[in-house]
């Protein structure tokens, strides 16, 4: 994909990734795996598990964004397309060590797809047959939603394809609902 403008986000992503602390990948994968299986045992309804994972992700996202902004030194994004690139190339690289690809923009540039070739969360995982409704890495959708909300963008992120369901790549669809103007985010308002 041709990079728009002169901002080489790939390079920025790699630089930041080199500076942050790393954790053993297997430990990370196994920890996430046990979270998901525990949720499945507790809630039994897979749709509910998806929702809970998204909520957990949201809580992670609202905190993660500060770390991201502090470490990556990426300035303001001119528009949503730039935001998408930053999330895919710098954000994902910094926290998961992978780069995602941004594809399938809609006509109004308010919706895009994040395509992940491989995902450390799903390493070694095989879903049993009856788990078709489960979006295993749904926590990522929540993280995206939480992080972008803290930078005044209200988005909806949903999984549309997942390697664990037999697709060749994983794909998250991100839709921009609105740009927020100085509102207190819902989670803090209700407390």
């Amino acid at each position, binding site marked *: 994909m041709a990079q728009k403008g002169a901002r080489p986000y790939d390079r920025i992503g790699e630089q930041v990734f080199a500076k942050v602390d790393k954790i053993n990948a297997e430990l990370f994968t196994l920890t996430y795996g046990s979270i998901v299986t525990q949720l499945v045992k507790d809630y039994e309804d897979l749709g509910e598990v998806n929702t809970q994972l998204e909520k957990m992700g949201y809580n992670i996202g609202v905190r993660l964004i500060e770390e991201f902004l502090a470490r990556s030194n990426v300035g303001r994004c001119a528009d949503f397309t730039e935001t998408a690139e930053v999330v895919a190339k710098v954000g994902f690289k910094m926290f998961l060590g992978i780069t995602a690809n941004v594809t399938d923009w809609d006509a109004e540039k308010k919706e895009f797809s994040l395509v992940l070739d491989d995902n450390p969360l799903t390493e070694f995982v*095989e879903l049993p047959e009856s788990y078709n409704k489960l979006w295993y890495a749904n926590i990522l959708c929540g993280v995206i939603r939480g992080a972008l909300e803290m930078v005044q963008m209200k988005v909806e992120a949903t999984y549309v394809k997942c390697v664990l369901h037999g697709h060749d790549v994983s794909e998250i669809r991100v839709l921009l609902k609105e740009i927020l103007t100085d509102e207190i985010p819902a989670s803090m308002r209700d407390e």
Partner: protein
Amino acid sequence: MGIKVVCASVIGKSNNPLYIRCFDSTEEALKFHYIVHSALDVVEEKSTAKKGASLDLYLGMLYPTEDYRVYGYTTNSKIKFIIVVQEDGDSHDQAIKNFFRKFHVLYANTVANPFYTPDDLITSRKFNEELEKQVKTV
């Protein structure tokens, strides 16, 4: 390389079979089940025989039958891998050891799946496919 793995199996802690797969369609699977089961006695013998010095995980040839040889490999978590091979000529110990190592890694990857509980039967499709590939390239 004159080796052909005709049967590969994973046995659990209490000698319960977790996975048995036969790659030779000409023979009855039951015969291999029997061979593997009798091999378990030899495994017991070998693991308790050496006093003190903890051996290699690789147990070597367990016993020969008319057409086949049985090899074993144990892990510290009491999981045993037993394979039945058909080989012509001298034993290719190194190749067998390599196969066991890869088999062990494959098993570890399957156990890493959060949806798999240890000591369950191994039904993972990935495990099956990978094992087939390994058997072909032994």
